[in-house]
């Protein structure tokens, strides 16, 4: 029998590839993007990252002792991710977007849909669904974050991690996270939880693709 993580990888592979092979993503990974579009992307990303921990908290609050390990994993993860929205703010500042502008920015409908779904599914479907969100966003960060940061750096002539610190650091940070995520997922035994995690990962890949497509 396959492990939970292996099942998830197989069941969501086409969704991952749907993100990876979207023409806008291919172009961004190959050539970077103009500064206006990169600003627009970080503005949306700020709202995704801002809601990341509150979604995990909402999920953790509903996870009982039968999945205690998952709840404790979410606590640790929230601690590690705490304040990362400020990294996005710093990157935005580095490419000429003031903090007030970011705070006044109204997220796009796709960002609202992504965040709205993540709260709803943790509350109404299954709290373990937060693992699906974590999986999709960490795959995007750890697999595509590095090449994307490199492409942005080249196309915008940025120095070091200035302006790409969130993407570049998550590309390496989430390497460790991916391994921890696999281990915690493999402790989950419920079919119902697996279905919720798979659905959540698929929806997150889908909405994140739409966010990038629309900027």
């Amino acid at each position, binding site marked *: 029998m396959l492990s939970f993580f292996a099942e998830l990888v197989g069941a969501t592979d086409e969704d991952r590839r749907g993100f990876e092979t979207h023409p806008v993503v291919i172009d961004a990974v190959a050539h970077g993007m103009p500064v206006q579009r990169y600003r627009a992307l970080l503005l949306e990303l700020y709202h995704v990252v801002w809601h990341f921990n509150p979604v995990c908290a909402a999920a953790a609050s509903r996870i009982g002792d039968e999945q205690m390990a998952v709840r404790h994993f979410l606590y640790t993860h929230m601690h590690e991710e705490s304040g990362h929205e400020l990294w996005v703010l710093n990157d935005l500042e580095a490419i000429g977007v003031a903090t007030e502008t970011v705070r006044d920015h109204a997220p796009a409908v796709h960002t609202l849909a992504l965040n709205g779904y993540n709260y709803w599914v943790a509350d109404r479907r299954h709290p373990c669904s937060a693992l699906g969100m974590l999986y999709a966003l960490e795959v995007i960060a750890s697999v595509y974050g590095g090449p994307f940061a490199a492409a942005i750096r080249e196309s915008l002539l940025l120095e070091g991690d200035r302006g790409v610190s969130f993407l570049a650091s998550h590309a*390496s940070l989430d390497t460790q996270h991916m391994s921890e995520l696999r281990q915690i997922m493999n402790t989950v035994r419920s079919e119902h939880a697996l279905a919720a995690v798979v659905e959540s990962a698929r929806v997150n890949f889908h909405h994140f693709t739409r966010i990038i497509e629309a900027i």
Partner: protein
Amino acid sequence: MISKPAVGVAGLLGRPYKTIRLEWSSDLRLLRVRTCVRPIQCYSLAAMGELQQMLGDISANPGLVRHFVMSSDVPNVFNFGGDLALFVLLVRAGDVESLRLYGKRCVDLVWWMENAANLDVHTTVLSQGDTLGGGLESVLPFHKVIFERRAQAGFPEVLFNLFPGMGAWDFTIRKAGFAVASEMILSGRLYSADELHYRRLVDIVVDDGQGETAIDNVVREVDPRHRGTLAALRAQRMAAPIRYESLLAIVDLWAESALGLTDRDLRLMERLARAQARKAGGADEGAVEELKLMELEAAWGDRRARFDRRNLSNDRRVRS
């Protein structure tokens, strides 16, 4: 997931595939398979699932298909091989089980080709472009391997500290010998169609655009002698057998080696994936050019290669 086997030609052709296109020639009972994993032509899980489904359908209908011919629908690319982003994901997650599973699916595909003669199916493959890593492994068990002159192939895995683990050693040793297998796998070099022909890995090399005619010639030549040819090919494989267990043991070794890749190795893999993305986006240069640059870097060191790259891009700017 693999569904119940289809019945007859209508069943075989009637499945809604996304990554392969099938054509049927009833006079020769020839199944033509064109792969089209767009935009990056590689062995994704979905593509392998569809190929396995289609091969399962052929096995379930003995005697239906006499000739199996495969080529690519993607211009200038036969196959880039493994799904690099999936590898990066699985290595970063430390998921040896999924790496093994991926390898086993690849091995199951080459194993079907290895045994096609037992199903009375003669197999021919045409490469008209880049054939890298798993892409090259996948063509080696075909009975007849045709390359157009523009096609280039090789096993670049060693450049990012890995090795080709889905049949490269067994099939290359059988076709070309131990020395050639070692040279190709341990160098990571790319080879032209003529170089591969000289090493006996490719059976026929034709000028660009002549691949279809070459397929037609092979099929017309084999068809009247189909029974005898397949009996001979069965005997050939008995004389120089390849064992499924050995292929799987190598997959295990490959998966364990992949887990040992460092961040630097994975970044090289990502660089190759970026180059594939550039070509998929319409650029002239892609993975092959990036591999050549990696070869240069390995030979001359990073500084020299970066200097050359800068000069190359300056030259291009001047030219444009």
